[in-house]
C-alpha cells in the first residue's frame, strides 16, 4: 500500500504543504508522506483563529456526533480499520491498544459534561449571587506525543469549553489528531475552531508560547521548559508505581501484572515499579512468570498485545536494557534477547522484570514504553520513593501509609488494593484538573433591581 498523504489543516481548510517528511513505520517502510506546517503556516493559522475566536462552548451533541464519526466513519478515505493499522504501524502500539484508545476517546467525549461538572465547584451562592466559569483565553495549543492516542481527549476538552484549538500531532502518530479534526468538521464544527499542524518541535513551542492555554506531552526534556508555566500544563512520564505491603497471592500478582502490562505497558498509568515490604525476588519471579505468557503476533494483527519499535529505537533500547541487566537481577526468560526481530521487520522489546536490593538505584523509577517493571524493597519511613508517581497503587492495610500518600502533593492519584491505576469515574483527577486550568471564575450578581443585600 502506498504511503498516505497527510496535509496540514489551517482553520478547517486542508493546505497542501511544499515541506514534506516521510514517516517510516516500525518495519522501516514509508507509511505516510506528511506535509509539514512551518512556523509561518502556524503563525497564519494562529492569527486567523484569533480573529475569528468567539469563546463559545461547543454543544455536546456535536462532539458526540464527531466521536461517532471518529470511531465508525470513513474520513478522507480512511476507514476505522485503516486508521488502526496506520497508528499501529507508525507508533508500534499493538492494534488492540489503538482500539481501546478509540473507545477511551469516545467515552471521554460522552462523559465530558459530567467530567466538567465534577471538576468545578458549585457556583450558586443564592439570592442572585453566582459564579460562572468562562474560558481563560481564546486559543488553546496542544503539543501531542505518539505514545498513545487517548491523550488527544485533552484538547477536545478545551474545544468543548470554548477555546479554538491548534494541535501539533505526535511525529509518529499524525493520524489520531487528524482523524478527530476531520470528524469534528464533518460533524459541523465551525472551521475556524480547529487547526492541525504537523511540524517540528520548534513549531510546537511557538504554538505554546503564543496560545492563551496549552498542553504539552513528552519526556522530561520536552516538557521541562513549561514546568511551572501558568499558561501551559505538562504531561511528562507517569512513573506510576505500586506499594506491595500484603502477601503476594496469585490474585495480587495477577493484578500487578495487569497494571503493568495492559495495553502493552504504553499508558502513563501503567506501573513500572513495585516497592515491596516482602521478598523482592519472589515478587519479581511471580511477575516475570506472568510476563512470560505475553506474546502474540505483530502489531497489525487484530489480537496483538505487545508493542514494537523500529530498528533505530530497537538498537537504543537493546543497549539500554543490556546495561540494566548487568546491574540488576533479571527475571525475564533466561537467555532471551532484550529485543527481538519480528517477521514483519519490526522489533519487539521483551517484557522485562528486574529486581534490585537497592531502592536508591537509578533504575528505580525508570519507565519504558513496554511491559517493564523494577521490583525493589521498601521499608516504612521511606515515603519519598512514592513521590513523583502519577498513580500510586497502595496494597497495604496500614492507614498511616495511605494517609501519607494522600497528603503527598507529588502523587497525582492514589488507588487502593487491587484497583487498576486507570480506574476513574467522570471527574476523578489523575493529573490535576483540566477544567479549572482552562476556565476562569467570574462573579455574576443580579439583584433583579433590589439593592445589594451585602452592601
Amino acid at each position: 500500500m502506498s504511503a498516505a498523504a497527510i496535509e496540514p489543516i489551517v482553520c478547517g481548510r486542508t493546505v497542501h504543504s511544499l515541506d514534506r517528511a516521510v514517516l517510516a513505520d516500525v518495519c522501516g517502510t514509508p507509511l505516510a508522506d506528511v506535509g509539514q506546517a512551518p512556523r509561518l503556516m502556524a503563525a497564519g493559522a494562529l492569527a486567523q483563529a484569533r480573529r475569528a475566536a468567539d469563546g463559545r462552548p461547543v454543544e455536546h451533541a456535536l462532539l458526540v456526533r464527531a466521536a461517532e464519526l471518529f470511531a465508525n466513519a470513513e474520513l478522507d478515505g480512511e476507514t476505522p480499520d485503516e486508521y488502526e493499522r496506520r497508528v499501529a504501524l507508525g507508533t508500534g502500539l499493538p492494534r488492540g491498544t489503538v482500539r481501546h484508545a478509540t473507545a477511551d476517546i469516545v467515552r471521554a467525549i460522552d462523559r465530558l459534561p459530567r467530567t466538567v461538572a465534577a471538576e468545578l465547584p458549585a457556583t450558586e451562592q443564592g439570592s442572585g449571587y453566582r459564579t460562572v466559569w468562562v474560558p481563560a483565553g481564546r486559543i488553546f495549543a496542544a503539543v501531542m506525543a505518539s505514545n498513545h492516542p487517548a491523550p488527544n481527549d485533552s484538547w477536545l476538552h478545551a474545544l468543548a469549553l470554548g477555546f479554538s484549538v491548534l494541535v501539533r500531532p505526535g511525529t509518529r502518530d499524525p493520524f489520531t489528531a487528524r482523524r478527530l479534526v476531520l470528524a469534528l468538521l464533518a460533524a459541523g464544527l465551525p472551521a475556524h475552531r480547529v487547526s492541525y499542524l504537523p511540524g517540528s518541535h520548534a513549531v510546537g513551542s511557538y504554538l505554546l508560547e503564543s496560545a492563551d492555554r496549552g498542553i504539552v506531552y513528552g519526556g522530561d526534556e520536552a516538557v521541562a521548559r513549561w514546568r511551572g508555566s501558568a499558561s501551559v500544563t505538562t504531561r511528562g512520564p507517569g512513573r506510576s508505581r505500586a506499594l506491595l505491603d500484603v502477601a503476594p497471592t496469585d490474585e495480587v500478582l495477577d493484578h500487578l501484572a495487569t497494571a503493568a502490562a495492559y495495553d502493552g505497558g504504553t499508558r502513563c498509568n501503567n506501573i513500572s515499579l513495585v516497592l515491596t515490604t516482602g521478598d523482592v525476588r519472589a515478587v519479581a519471579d511471580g511477575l516475570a512468570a506472568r510476563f512470560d505468557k505475553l506474546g502474540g503476533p505483530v502489531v497489525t494483527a487484530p489480537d496483538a498485545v505487545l508493542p514494537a519499535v523500529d530498528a533505530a529505537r530497537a538498537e537504543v533500547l537493546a543497549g539500554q536494557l543490556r546495561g540494566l541487566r548487568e546491574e540488576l537481577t533479571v527475571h525475564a526468560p533466561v537467555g532471551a534477547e532484550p529485543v527481538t526481530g519480528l517477521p514483519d521487520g519490526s522489533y519487539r522489546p521483551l517484557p522485562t522484570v528486574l529486581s534490585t536490593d537497592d531502592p536508591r538505584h537509578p533504575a528505580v523509577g525508570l519507565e519504558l514504553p513496554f511491559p517493564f517493571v523494577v521490583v525493589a524493597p521498601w521499608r516504612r519511613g521511606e515515603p519519598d520513593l512514592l513521590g513523583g508517581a502519577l498513580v500510586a497503587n497502595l496494597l497495604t492495610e496500614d492507614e498511616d501509609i495511605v494517609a501519607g500518600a494522600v497528603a503527598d502533593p507529588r502523587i497525582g492519584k492514589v488507588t487502593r488494593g487491587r484497583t487498576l491505576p486507570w480506574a476513574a469515574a467522570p471527574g476523578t483527577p489523575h493529573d490535576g484538573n483540566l477544567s479549572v486550568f482552562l476556565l476562569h471564575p467570574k462573579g455574576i450578581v443580579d439583584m433583579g433591581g433590589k439593592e445589594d443585600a451585602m452592601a
Partner: protein
Amino acid sequence: MTTTSVPATTGLTFDERVRHLMRWHFSPETGSPFWLRQLPELGFDPIEEVTDAAGLLRFPDLSDRLRTTPAGDLIPRGLTGAGFQVYESGGSSGAPKRIVDRDYRSRLLSWAFERLRAHHLPDPAHWLHLGPSGPHVFAYDCARYAALGGGLFYPVDFDPRWVKRLVAAGDTEIVGRYVRHLLDQARDVLSSQPIGVLSTTPPLIEAICADPELHELVNRRVDTIIWAGTSFSPESLRQVDEIFFPDTTVIGIYGNTLMGVAPQRPPQPGDKHRCVFEPWAEAIRIDLVEDGEPVGYGERGRVRLSLVTEEMFLPNVMERDTAVRVEPAEGGAVDGLAEVGTIATVGANRVIEGVY
C-alpha cells in the same frame, strides 16, 4: 613601497583568472604572508600546476585557519595600502572566520545590485536593515545597495551571536524579549520614515508575521523584502510570497562572509523552484557535491566553493550548507542553487524513556 597594479582580469574566463591569480598569490613580491607560508606545505607548485577550476581542488581546505590567522597576513603584498576592512563570519560553527576586503566586495555588490534590480527594486529606495551589523557583512552589503540605489540606509543593530548564546543556554524568554526589542525599533523606523526596502533574516520575517500589527505596517510601507542569512523551507517561502506578502517583491540572497553573495535570479519559465540563487561567475565557483563528486541537476549536494580574487584566495572550501543543483538559466553561464539547507547534525546518544 608603491602599490603594485592589480592584474587586469576583467573579461577573462574563470580558468584564465585562475592562471593569472596563481602567479599573483604565490609570487613572493605580490602574495600574502598567509599563502606564502602555506606554499612549502602544499607539495605542488600552484603557479605551474594549477591552471583551471579543477586544479583548485588540489588545495586543502584551509578555511579553518581563518579563525586564528592575523587578518593582516591575508593581504597580498602586492596590494599593500590602506583601506582594508575585516569581516567576520557568523560563528555558528566555532570561533568566527575573518577575511579582508578593500575593493572586491564593492565590485561584487555592483553586480549583485543589478541582479536585484532585475526584480523591480524601487528606485530610488530607502532601506530598513533589520539584521546583523557589527563585524558581519550583511549590513555593509545592504548599505552599499542603498547607496547604489540612491537611497538612505536605516540599520537596526542585531547581534546574532548573543541570540545563539541565549538559545544554547535555553534562555528562550530573553530571546523573545530581544526579538521584541528589534521589532520595536523596526516599527519606529517604519512608522516615520519612507522605507521602500526591508532587508532582514528568515527568523525575523517569521517574527514580523507573528505580530499582526507590524505585519500590516510592513505590508503597507515596504515594496521589496530582501532576505538572507539563513534558509527558508519551500513552504515557508510560499507562505511569505503568497499568504503574508502577496503584493510585495520578495528576493532571497544566498551568501556568506567568505564567498560573498548569490542573489536570487529572476524566475524562468519551467522553474521547479520558487527561488534559485546564482553566484558571481567572475570570481566564485560553487559546486554541489556528494563524496567529492558533483551531483546531477535536481539533486542535493554539499556546497563546495572557491573564491578567486586579487584580494582573497580561498580554494576548495566545504561549507555546512547543502542545496539542490539547478541548470543554468537561459543565457546564463553558471548553475543555480535552490532549497539551501544546513547539514543536519545527528544526535549521538538517544535515550528512550517514559510514557505520557
